């Protein structure tokens, strides 16, 4: 029986702007199991990056977490009064950061401090969360760099002296520095060329095996999920549309949106057929469509879809879908 690492309940992240309230994440709930690779998929603007930023409590004004609860009893200490990550104090959560939950941000190129050596940037985190000495921390950094396939000598270099791929690997090395229970990777392959993409994915798989950690991978790129995710959460317009094991989703997509996503993947092996995109354009967070948010673009739309929002329902063990076709 899978243990639950995170229980995300009704996460809502809103941005208050002069043009209106942007409900970027609007009621998302799902579980993350221990030791799995959970993929979050969906097109740009569906709120998946914002969701994980919310999990990491990195949302800045004008954005804020409107409501939500992230129960994580395995992560929080016995000392804290509750196990909801979102209601810990800043200082309590700071102690949780990196040691339990680490982050591989989108566009890692710019995440490194330009005026500090690579080594120092990882050492400072190690020192902040453990009782290592500086010497020990430096040695650990060398080992980490080797794990991701980099020469330990680059530890003394500055970020501008590294290539994009090298910087990405440094970020990954930093993410595993404290052997966290959870690693959140946001679009780890975007804006990289294909060879580096492959290398990054292989590195992620390798570290998962070595560390036995849980990984959340956010990507709009379905093939990425096909390669490394165990389970998939499909998001659209700030809500969850479908959840299930990755093979199931690829083999038998239930939600029309998921079907559309799968259909956009070109296949090298099977017969050539015309690629179909999903008609229409993504809606704007300032004005989500009524009822089911996908209804304007859905091929199998029914009258009820425009009026009532479908709830996420478990149609078979571990398989969830939010669509009137299945209610």
């Amino acid at each position, binding site marked *: 029986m899978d243990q639950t690492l995170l229980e995300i309940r009704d996460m809502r992240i809103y941005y208050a702007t002069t043009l209106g309230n942007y409900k970027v994440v609007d009621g998302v709930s799902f579980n993350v199991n221990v030791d799995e690779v959970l993929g979050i998929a969906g097109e740009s603007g569906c709120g998946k990056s914002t969701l994980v930023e919310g999990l990491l409590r990195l949302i800045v004004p004008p954005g804020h977490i409107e409501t939500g609860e992230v129960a994580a009893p395995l992560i929080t200490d016995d000392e804290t009064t509750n196990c909801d990550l979102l209601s810990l104090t800043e200082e309590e959560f700071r*102690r949780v*950061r990196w040691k339990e939950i680490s982050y591989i941000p989108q566009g890692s190129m710019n995440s*490194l401090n330009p005026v500090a050596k690579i080594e120092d940037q990882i050492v400072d985190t190690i020192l902040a969360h453990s009782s290592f000495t500086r010497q020990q921390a430096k040695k650990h950094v060398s080992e980490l760099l080797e794990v991701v396939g980099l020469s330990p000598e680059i530890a003394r270099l500055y970020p*501008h002296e590294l290539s994009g791929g090298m910087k990405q690997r440094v970020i990954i090395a930093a993410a595993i520095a404290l052997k966290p229970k959870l690693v959140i990777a946001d679009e780890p392959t975007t804006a990289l060329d294909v060879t580096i993409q492959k290398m990054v994915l292989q590195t992620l798989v390798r570290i998962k095996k070595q560390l036995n950690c849980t990984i959340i991978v956010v990507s709009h790129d379905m093939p990425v999920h096909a390669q490394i995710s165990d389970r998939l959460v499909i998001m659209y317009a700030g809500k969850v549309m479908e959840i299930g094991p990755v093979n199931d989703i690829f083999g038998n997509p239930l939600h029309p949106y998921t079907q559309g996503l799968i259909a956009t993947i070109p296949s090298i092996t099977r017969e050539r057929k015309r690629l179909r995109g999903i008609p229409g354009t993504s809606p704007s967070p300032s004005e989500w469509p009524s009822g089911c948010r996908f209804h304007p673009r859905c091929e199998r739309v029914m009258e009820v879809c425009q009026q009532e929002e479908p709830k996420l329902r478990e149609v078979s063990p571990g398989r969830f879908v939010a669509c009137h076709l299945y209610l």
Partner: protein
Amino acid sequence: MKKRAILAYILKRILLYIFTIWGAFTIAFLFFHMVPGDPIAAYVRSMQQRGRTISGGENLGQEYRKMMGLDGPLYVQYLHYLENVVLRFNLGPSFIGFPTPAEKHIFLALPWTIGLLGIATLIAWILGFALGGLVGWKRDSPTSSLLTNLSLVISQIPPYFIALALLFIFAYTLLWLPRRGAFDAAIPKGFTWAFIKSVIRYGTLPALSLVIFALFGWVISTRSIVVSILGEDYLVYAKAKGLTGGKILRAYVLRNAMLPQVTGLALSLGFVLNGALLVEILFNYPGLGSLFRDAIGMLDYNTVQGIMLMSIVAVLTATLLIDLLLPLVDPRVAREGKT
């Protein structure tokens, strides 16, 4: 490989420095030979206005010209200029203390100006940087807003005016501090505690004027740089890493703010010197400022030219020194150009 880049950078800067100094000296030379009005005639005129007659008339003018290398075709004068002024800073005799060479007066006054300016600028920069960093870091607090608005206003007031206000309050009304001079004339000069104390006492108001003006300017500029740094990706990442606020402020925010602010310091020196010279005049401080006023009053061509050139040299040299320190502040500098 890195060493070579830094060496190349240093070499480039030094060459630029030498070239600029040569350029400035040459332009000064050209200006003075193309300016309508003959400095010698002007001097003679000003002497006559004071009721003194110049015996020897025309001949004396010629003599002066020859003495100061102002006769002969232009290129001869230029060569004379290069040899004496540029290479040896031999300016010729001064009028204000004839026949003492002009450069002697200048070298006597220079330490006072550099001391005043140097100390004031350093204090203002360090305090302004730290304060501006804090204000930018905690920019939502009411104290920050107050400080920011205050700084916005004060930083626009030229140091001369600040000096006037300080002078009036502390020297004329409260009588806490002296009005003019750099030290108590009654105390013998030397490295005695009494003399040093008097130097500090007399230098307080002039230095304070310069500090107040510059400090609030640094607060504003540092604050805006910090605010823009706060929006950078690596700041978000630093927070995600669970580092403490203090550590992030020091190692991530302030260290990145240093480069533009140190560069800014170098660029501001000319401006600061302008203010310092005027403040010196107000306080009759025995630096280049007062010397300049006296020399201008007498149309002492050599001294005036010398002070002008010395000001340029001083600023360019200080800028060079700061530029040479830059690679220490930000490792990206030794690359081709700055970021």
